């Protein structure tokens, strides 16, 4: 085997060769190679020792840093007021300044709320039904419902708006000392009906 190269000697010093190769290389290296291998090993020891010392020095600081990171991750997001420095709290601000500060801190919320409220109000106004007062003002002209008993208007030139009538309903009737009768009288126009509740007392012989 010829004289081994420096890289082969470094591999030998680092223990990267198997036993047979290492023995063959040591024989081929001779005294000079052996000195080189020893020198390389010594330098390696020095470098490793230096790095380990540096790591030991930094370990304490790094562990504190990780503890700090973990604490920050575990804590909830601090509120604006709570996150203020202690000296600000020590100043004991007045109610007005606290109010102003609160509004400052919630400006985005207030703006969002105001915009939402405005949008909903606009939608409600656009989509809202016509006010019922219009229903009240529509009346059937007298010429359409003659003899309506007060429900007719004064007859105009416009086409009348005829409202659909619903028969009266007597939901309950309680008569004391007599007999109750319920009937309706159809108006001449056939549209509406007049409900009549009639009581015939027991002591009155004549009924209607």
């Amino acid at each position: 085997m010829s004289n081994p190269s420096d890289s082969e000697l470094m591999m030998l010093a680092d223990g990267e060769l198997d036993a047979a190769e290492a023995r063959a290389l040591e024989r081929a290296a001779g005294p000079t190679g052996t000195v080189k291998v020893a020198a390389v090993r010594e330098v390696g020891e020095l470098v490793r020792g230096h790095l380990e010392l540096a790591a030991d020095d930094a370990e304490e600081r790094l562990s504190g840093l990780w503890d700090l990171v973990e604490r920050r991750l575990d804590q909830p997001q601090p509120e604006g007021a709570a996150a203020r420095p202690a000296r600000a709290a020590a100043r004991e601000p007045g109610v007005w300044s606290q109010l102003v500060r609160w509004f400052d801190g919630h400006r985005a919320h207030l703006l969002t709320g105001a915009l939402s409220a405005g949008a909903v109000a606009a939608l409600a106004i656009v989509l809202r039904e016509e006010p019922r007062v219009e229903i009240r003002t529509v009346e059937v002209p007298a010429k359409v419902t003659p003899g309506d008993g007060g429900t007719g208007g004064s007859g105009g030139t416009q086409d009348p708006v005829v409202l659909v009538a619903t028969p009266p309903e007597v939901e309950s009737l309680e008569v004391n000392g007599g007999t109750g009768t319920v009937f309706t009288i159809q108006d001449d126009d056939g549209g509406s009906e007049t409900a009549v509740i009639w009581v015939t007392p027991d002591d009155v012989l004549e009924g209607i």
Partner: protein
Amino acid sequence: MKTRSLLTTSALALCVTIGVLALTAPAASADAPIACAVVEIEASTSDAPSIAAELRPLEKKLKKPPFSSWNTFKQLGAHEVSLEPMKASTLTLTHGKAQLLLREVTARGQKKKTRISLGISVDDGEGKRVLDSKVAVDAGDYLVVGRSLKGNRGHLIAMHCKP
């Protein structure tokens, strides 16, 4: 966190706005008072048939059966009453008393008349409760409550209400 807070604020504002609108919308007129016109009539039979001039609006109804069994109608009194929901109004009549209670006003769109639900109680001249009833009628339609009196007479309470 901030986005969630903004969404919460927006939802809250939305709810408050809807609530305010629902409470203040003019469509919620169920709480508005209604006006009722009440006429007290005495019906009888006489040799000189007549219907009081004040009763012209009711003339055609009074000439139909069964009211046509009488031929003389006299107005005993007239009342204009403003009824508020669930607040009873008592009317003092010539023959007793009448108590009216506005139970509900229901608007039913632009093609149907507003529906008015009333509670009606009538006492005779001696303070005895004669009738107690709950009635629903269209706004503007007449409702007549009456009873027979001695001497072949009739006591009519005619009313109609409008929002």
